């Protein structure tokens, strides 16, 4: 047998290397392997971290560092000097997680390790995180603040009766309107008290502008604003107390009927998409969108030249004297219990979200609205705001913040919201009546999630 010649060795090496390269070459269109689902980290059964009893642990001495994950660390960076002056013992490591924060946190919580001491979480994801058992129960820590936090935010941070996060980013909502458009067509925003008034305004705008100016955009296959305006009436997909599916009750039907009415009367943009909606802010064809306080950020981002031309009022009510606000979006700062630095984590959150000093910086540096009831008295929120043409809009938002009825997202929100979105499409297309569409949606949610 021939000895391995150098040439042969090199040839074999080159062949092997190029085969490896080809094999790892991704992006081969339709791969011939069937697509089994890659499971999330094959984790051994993690020991569920029990809620850390706050008082039992002896206070740690010396410096500690807590880690905070969020997609928006800018305001935390701004207040770090104040925090370090106040509490030099607890250092905070800010990690920017603009990407898939929810998946990462969820994986870490299930695996039992790798979670930070504080994590940002959208309101709608909090039940999912809490359900893993990996978040720390901070009910005792937050007890002194129960009456100071606006009710709906406190509720969104709770799951099955226990509190797992400190609220962040209040989202009181009102009815925006374009001052210039309303003046042009002689509409008085103060007179829009009920949704009947709102539809009438829409018709007036449509007729006077030859069909150009509409109220706002309604999307198909979307759970919003159906669910949000149902919250306005105290309803929702799930009941706040029992967790039962209630999306087929009278309140939801009333909301969907209203949405369908707006659609059929032609007073709203019909499913034009986010991109086009932004364009309507520029050309003034969206005259009166309902929205949270952070809608202003979006408008400023897409149509900065319209700043100063907007005003905001409480939402119309479903019946005279009813609630005139609701929430759109919002987030929490949850406390996973893995690092056992729960006390320290809470003290940081206490400063940033539950004190006037911290909340003020959250607002000035991050446009994150305070979650404290008392904010309505703060001078910083009592000033004219240029975007709203000098209106003292922040005071209005602070007042509305306390009026939002608590609602429940629920653990099954992702799936349920999709089913509800389909119901909206059925109703808007006229294939089912609002009542039927919601009845079917509720039935499907109950069946798929094993609820009643």
């Amino acid at each position, binding site marked *: *047998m021939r*000895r*391995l010649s150098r040439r042969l060795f090199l040839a*074999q*090496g080159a*062949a*092997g290397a190029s*085969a*490896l390269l080809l*094999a*790892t070459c991704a*992006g081969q*269109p*339709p*791969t*011939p*392997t*069937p*697509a*089994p*689902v*890659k*499971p*999330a980290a*094959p*984790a051994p*059964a*993690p020991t569920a971290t029990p809620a850390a009893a706050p008082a039992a642990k002896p206070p740690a001495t010396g410096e500690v560092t807590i880690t905070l994950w969020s997609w928006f660390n800018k305001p935390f960076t701004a207040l770090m000097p104040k925090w370090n002056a106040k509490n030099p013992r607890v250092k905070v490591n800010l990690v920017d997680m603009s990407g898939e924060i929810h998946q990462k946190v*969820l*994986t870490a919580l*299930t695996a039992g390790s790798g979670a930070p001491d504080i994590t940002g979480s959208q309101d709608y994801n909090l039940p999912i995180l809490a*359900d*893993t058992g990996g978040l720390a129960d901070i009910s005792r820590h937050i007890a002194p603040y129960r009456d100071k936090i606006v009710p709906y935010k406190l509720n969104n941070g709770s799951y099955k009766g226990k509190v797992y996060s400190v609220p962040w980013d209040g989202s009181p909502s009102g009815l925006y309107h374009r001052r210039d458009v309303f003046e042009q067509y002689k509409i008085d925003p103060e007179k829009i008290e009920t949704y009947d008034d709102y539809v009438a305004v829409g018709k007036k705008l449509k007729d006077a502008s030859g069909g150009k100016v509409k109220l706002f955009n309604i999307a*198909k*296959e979307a759970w919003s604003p159906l669910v949000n305006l149902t919250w306005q009436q105290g309803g929702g997909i799930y009941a706040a107390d029992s967790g039962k599916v209630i999306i087929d009750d009278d309140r939801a039907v009333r909301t969907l009927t209203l949405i369908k009415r707006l659609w059929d009367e032609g007073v709203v943009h*019909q*499913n*034009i*998409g986010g*991109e*086009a909606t932004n*364009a309507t802010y520029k050309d003034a064809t969206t005259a009166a969108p309902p929205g949270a306080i952070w809608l202003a950020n979006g408008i400023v981002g897409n149509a900065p030249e319209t700043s100063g031309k907007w005003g905001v009022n409480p939402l119309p009510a479903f019946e005279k004297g009813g609630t005139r606000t609701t929430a759109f979006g919002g987030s929490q700062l949850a406390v996973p219990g893995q690092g056992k630095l729960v006390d320290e984590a809470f003290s940081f959150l206490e400063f940033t979200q539950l004190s006037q000093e911290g909340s003020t910086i959250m607002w000035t540096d991050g446009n994150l609205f305070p979650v404290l009831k008392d904010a309505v008295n703060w001078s910083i929120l009592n000033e004219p705001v240029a975007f709203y043409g000098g209106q003292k809009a922040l005071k209005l938002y602070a007042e509305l913040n306390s009026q939002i009825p608590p609602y429940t997202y629920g653990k*099954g929100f*992702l*799936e349920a919201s*999709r089913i509800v*979105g*389909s119901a909206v*499409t*059925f109703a808007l*297309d006229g294939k089912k009546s609002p009542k039927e569409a919601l009845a079917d949606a509720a039935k499907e949610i109950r069946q*798929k999630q094993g609820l009643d």
Partner: protein
Amino acid sequence: MAGTLVASTRQVPSASRLWLKAAPYLFISPFYFLFAIFGAFPIGYSLWISFHEWRGLRVGEFVGLRNYALLLVDPAFARAVVNTAAIGLVYVPAMTILSLTFAAILSRELRLRGVYRTGIFLPVVTSGVAVGILFQFFFASPYSPFNAVLGLFGLPAKSWIGEEWFIKPAIVVMLLWRWVGSNMMIMLAGIQTISQELYEAARIDGASGVQSFFFITIPLMARVIAFAMILSTIGMFNLFDEVYLVVGSGGGPYEAGLVTGLLIYRTAFETFKFGYASAIAYAVGVIIIALSMLQIFFSERTAR
């Protein structure tokens, strides 16, 4: 001579002989090592998961074939398979014809042949996510070129993604644009194996270009065409990125765009039913194998 051979074998040390035998396997082992972890293990593990209930984010109790029984009566699964099949029934023939036509044209000596081939191939190397976002804008935004062209014919500018009947044709068009380059390459490779003498002989006998295409090119390309069709079929059932970005996990109005890949994704990552999702994935795998075997059978018959 034999004596010399025996003598030289005895002279080669055994360590070197072992190395000679082992060397090829060692060279290919990195690939198989990675494949074992990231390829074979998930395939096997997810089969195992499909026989279990999924609790929270961990494997739960053993339920045998219950997940498979469930999917036989699940309307969402039926809808996903029907949708995918419907799209495939249009897409696969259209893609085959289109890519074969392009390949036939571009196999000749044209002046800017390289430019055309590159241009047609560019969409293939684009990210699926980018393609999805692009087409979402193209079909949904009233300001897109698509709506601008429609406006010339007096049609309203609106989000066509909201129309149920539009979704499947839109997906077919998007996929044709995306993958025609890669299928064209496959066809080109096949065409180039056909000997030019056959075409010359046909020309001498008076055959036109079209006739030689149908009587020489296609029969000799039968296996290559089948290969491309099988790849397209498999791709159909694995489809996810582009569709997800155009219609979202809901599948669009009345779930018109709900393809099997989308269903697996949302069952796993929205409802956290990994056991059931694994069962769906395996069922889809069985469908793909069945369809592939059918296509091979028919192509073998044509090749003869």
